């Protein structure tokens, strides 16, 4: 097999553009997903089963259906109801937000519930209300435990954002597939994309591992 470096060089500026969009989509997905996920997490912890049900349904829907199906539903089904000309990048960000929100909700919930009940009780016995106990006592301890799984979720999100190439968002894999069309050659584009994903995710993995070790020492 001959590998044509000239194709890689020709497409390199596009790969870089695609990488930037991939990072942007993932970053916005993780930020909006965290905020959304925190709200869902509190919904999942409501004592009343009827009020809790919609939040559980939400989480389970997004965890138990393929992200590609979610993306297509949102891009071709939901977005046309909201905007006249659906934008692939916006659809991708919305899908990643809604999807990662479900996963992050579970990370937040597990983190919050991993803190000993005694901590909340001690805070309440000192006259703090529920919000103060959450804010000053439970969350600061829980966030430490959430950082590693949140980092892993971010890595997953970066990889999953490649699905957006299916709806022609001009992210990394979109350009990674382009040489296949022009030259009918799979290797150059796809391997370049794979390489860039690998470098990004590997870097993040190393960072997450470091942070995790650091947090363990502090405990």
């Amino acid at each position, binding site marked *: 097999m001959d590998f044509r470096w000239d194709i890689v060089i020709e497409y390199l500026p596009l790969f870089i553009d695609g990488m930037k969009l991939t990072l942007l989509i993932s970053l916005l997905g993780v930020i909006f997903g965290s905020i959304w996920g925190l709200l869902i997490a509190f919904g999942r912890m409501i004592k009343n089963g009827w009020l809790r049900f919609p939040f559980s349904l939400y989480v389970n829907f997004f965890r138990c259906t393929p992200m590609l199906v979610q993306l297509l539903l949102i891009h071709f089904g939901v977005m046309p109801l909201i905007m006249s000309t659906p934008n692939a990048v916006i659809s991708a960000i919305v899908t990643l937000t809604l999807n990662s929100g479900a996963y992050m909700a579970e990370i937040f919930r597990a983190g919050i519930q991993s803190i000993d009940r005694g901590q909340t009780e*001690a*805070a309440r016995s*000192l006259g*703090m209300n529920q919000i103060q106990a959450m804010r000053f006592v439970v969350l600061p301890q829980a966030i430490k435990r959430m950082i590693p799984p949140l980092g892993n979720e971010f890595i997953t999100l970066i990889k999953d954002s490649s699905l957006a190439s299916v709806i022609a968002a001009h992210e990394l894999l979109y350009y990674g597939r382009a040489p296949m069309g022009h030259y009918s050659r799979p290797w150059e584009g796809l391997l370049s994309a794979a390489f860039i994903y690998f470098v990004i995710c590997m870097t993040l993995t190393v960072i997450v591992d470091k942070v995790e070790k650091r947090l363990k020492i502090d405990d």
Partner: protein
Amino acid sequence: MIKIKNIHKKFGKNEVLKGINLHVHPQEVVVVIGPSGSGKSTLLRCVNALEHFHQGEIEVCGITVSPKSKELNELRKKVGMVFQHFHLFPHRTVIDNITLAPIQVLKQSKKEAESKAIALLEKVGLAEKKDVYPSSLSGGQKQRVAIARALAMEPKVMLFDEPTSALDPEMVGEVLAVMKNLAEEGMTMMIVTHEMGFAREVADRVIFMDEGIIMEENVPNVFFEHPQNERAKAFLSKVLL
């Protein structure tokens, strides 16, 4: 000071408190003893509204709590609680453990809260530990910090739930000494403990609970020398070996 009127509490079908009546007077020290599972912790937790009850009424410092009450933080501000397992906040230094609630709940300034906290740490003999994290303290030191933390809210009543049960034997004394001091200063206290020597020395009244009922109550001398109730006799013969 504390008026407990006919409290009933169930966990599911399991009735844990079956009609408790108890008045604690200002400056009185009441020690609650009884076998494990008899409902002692649950009773204390009801007084601090950490546990919801199904029937009856509790009045503390003029604030009445019933099964329907919503304003529980006001009550908790007046009642300090010390737990068997301390429950210090591990992410905060000793002094920040003590000042958190006064700053957030009582809206004291940081400076005011800290100077009060230092005075309290001196009182429990731990002034030099003010800037360390709880994980570096021994059990006895942790419990003394927990007592200081509760006192920082200037409670009218202090509740202790087996404050020395999680401690190594050599550390029990230092915690009991702090509690005895507090009693001598006139603090109103309700204490669940298995330290019979302490009960005898410090209590104004001893309550014996079993199966969710107060079986016997008396001044310590009479209670320990001449228990009337059969279960109290059996219990004492086990713990006073």
